[in-house]
């Protein structure tokens, strides 16, 4: 068993090494994603392992000291895993066609399905292990520096998380290949890009559910149940809402892509709109994962800006009546804001990676269009419209959703003021998304070359 695992490992290494730049990109980006995931999970796990009040009040304005607020921080950290998962999902698509064909070739060369699955799992698992190791190596010293003597439970939790990330990564890698393993011939002969079905979308949803479940559990245990159900009713409600929004956003972004594609494909007047619309209609789920993360960030961002506005107003009025210092509250707000910004950043990276990959997969087709005299400007516009068209209605809904959270909070606190400034968030996110997609455009010039027209 160990011998065969070793030979599989050697084969996986040889294949990765011989496979070229895009494989390295995938490995590097997957490792980065895994590092982020490990980092967030480690921080959340470490906090969750604490019991009762803690002495390190100096850290984060004392937010980590109180069980109640600590639960909020854990929640935020775990929610940050959502955009990270979206990012990892995008990374898995880099060079996917090429890799699938390569592994199918292995099957044809006589490898057993189990062997191919192991090799694929090893490839992804090793990248995740790398990321996890780096994240752990950074987190542990920080942790030891912050708390002089972390309890044993904390160490156990940390070790479990550091191991779980590569194991889960390997499992996902093996799972993603089930069709290649099933039909090697079909996948070797395949000429066009593999059509991602709704499977990855389902996988994303399952992962989302898992994260939400764990987060809920962590929040509940960390906030300390003895103090009655009223305390965790609020996080429960927030969670239910977020979960619904998360699941809904995947569906919404897919549906928006399909609707926009169908509607515009019939009415398109310009070549760029026509190409973009038909691509959306053809495969509305391709970008659903990333777009879903964009929507979540937008909902959270819009909601946050509304709530922040209301809270700061309230703080200014009640300054003298508060038990804690104002900074206790503002630090919490700032941390939440930072978390949302990080989430947005990760999501935008996923968007850029996705655009770049979609360009890379289609490069010979695009080269043929350029050869036929289709101006690059038209192709560039089509590419941007592919992102811009479906995001517009989806972001509108997300913005309204976020504003509804703000309005709800506003009616709860009876301040009544609705902060319209929050509406800037969806607009900013929209602009940022277009910019992120645009970062991939220089690739169009680089990859669309006459050499892509060779048909051998």
């Amino acid at each position, binding site marked *: 068993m160990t011998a065969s695992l070793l030979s599989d490992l050697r084969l996986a290494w040889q294949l990765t090494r011989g496979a070229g730049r895009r494989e390295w990109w995938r490995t590097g980006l997957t490792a980065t994603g895994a590092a982020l995931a490990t980092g967030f999970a480690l921080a959340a796990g470490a906090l969750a392992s604490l019991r009762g009040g803690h002495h390190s009040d100096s850290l984060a304005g004392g937010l980590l000291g109180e069980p109640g607020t600590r639960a909020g921080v854990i929640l935020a950290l775990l929610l940050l895993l959502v955009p990270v998962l979206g990012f990892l999902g995008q990374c898995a698509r880099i060079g996917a066609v090429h890799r699938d064909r390569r592994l199918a070739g292995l099957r044809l060369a006589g490898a057993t399905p189990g062997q191919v699955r192991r090799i694929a799992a090893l490839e992804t698992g090793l990248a995740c292990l790398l990321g996890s190791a780096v994240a752990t190596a950074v987190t542990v010293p920080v942790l030891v520096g912050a708390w002089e003597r972390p309890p044993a439970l904390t160490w156990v939790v940390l070790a479990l998380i550091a191991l779980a990330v590569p194991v889960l990564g390997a499992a996902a890698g093996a799972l993603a290949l089930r069709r290649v393993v099933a039909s090697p011939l079909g996948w070797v002969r395949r000429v066009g890009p593999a059509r991602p079905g709704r499977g990855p979308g389902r996988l994303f949803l399952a992962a989302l559910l898992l994260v939400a479940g764990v987060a809920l559990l962590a929040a509940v245990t960390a906030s300390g149940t003895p103090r009655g159900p009223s305390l965790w009713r609020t996080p429960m409600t927030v969670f239910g809402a977020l979960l619904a929004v998360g699941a809904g956003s995947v569906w919404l972004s897919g549906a928006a892509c399909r609707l926009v594609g169908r509607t515009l494909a019939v009415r398109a007047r310009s070549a760029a709109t026509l190409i973009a619309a038909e691509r959306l209609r*053809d495969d509305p789920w391709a970008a659903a994962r990333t777009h879903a993360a964009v929507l979540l960030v937008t909902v959270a961002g819009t909601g946050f800006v509304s709530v922040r506005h209301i809270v700061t107003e309230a703080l200014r009025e009640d300054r003298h009546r508060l038990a804690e210092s104002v900074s206790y509250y503002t630090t919490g707000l700032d941390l939440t804001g930072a978390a949302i910004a990080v989430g947005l950043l990760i999501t935008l990276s996923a968007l850029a990676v996705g655009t770049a990959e979609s360009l890379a997969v289609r490069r010979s087709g695009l080269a043929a269009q350029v050869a036929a005299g289709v101006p*690059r400007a038209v192709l560039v516009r089509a590419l941007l419209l592919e992102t811009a068209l479906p995001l517009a209605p989806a972001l509108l809904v997300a913005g309204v959703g976020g504003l509804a959270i703000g309005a709800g909070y506003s009616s709860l606190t009876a301040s009544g003021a609705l902060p319209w400034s929050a509406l800037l968030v969806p607009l900013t996110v929209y602009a940022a998304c277009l910019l992120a997609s645009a970062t991939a455009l220089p690739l169009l010039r680089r990859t669309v070359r006459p050499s892509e027209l060779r048909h051998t």
Partner: protein
Amino acid sequence: MNHGDNTAGGLLTGRRLVKAHGRTEALRGATVTLDAGEILAVTGPSGSGKSTLAHCLSGITRPDAGSVTYAGRRLEELPEKRLSELRRTEFGVVFQFGQLIPELTAADNVALPLMLAGAGRAEARATAGEWLERFGVRGQEDSRPGELSGGQAQRVALARALVTGPRVVFADEPTGALDSLAGEQVMTALVHTVRETGTAVLLITHDAQVAAYADREVRLCDGVAAPQGAAA
């Protein structure tokens, strides 16, 4: 043997073209002339530089040395933008496969060059329908390339290449992915149409039976045009 001097006139002329891909020289001083309305076959073994020659002549790539003249204009003096415009107005291209946008319907694929030239969608689609009929693929307007047979897809590609009324069509192994019957239908459709429209064709092929549709043949060997005909 020097063929460099008897190339005066002609619609499209490449003189002493040199082009290297990395360290391999695909073209080593090839000279080729295409007259208006003629079908010229460029043949030769694989790796002889046929495709590279077509890419240089159509302005898809710029040669390392030598010149390309089209209707009195030197292509190497034109900026990329003008070359692109030239390719979509004066030239048409057909490859072995892959020139159709997979997500667009057959009619939209053919209408695309017209829309790029500023025609309205309805008008462009109507013209596209006429061209699809001409190539015997009427009734497939709303099929996507993946739903067409190889021969049908190539006939749609021909319609797309000819819809703007180009003066030159570059056909690079247009039947390379087809069985002989479908290939024959594609070549017959191409020849009949260009004879009617007076379009010149540069036909790249390794297949003598396809080359036989041409009026004339240039044989490339190691990046230069091989001497033709009489033994001595």
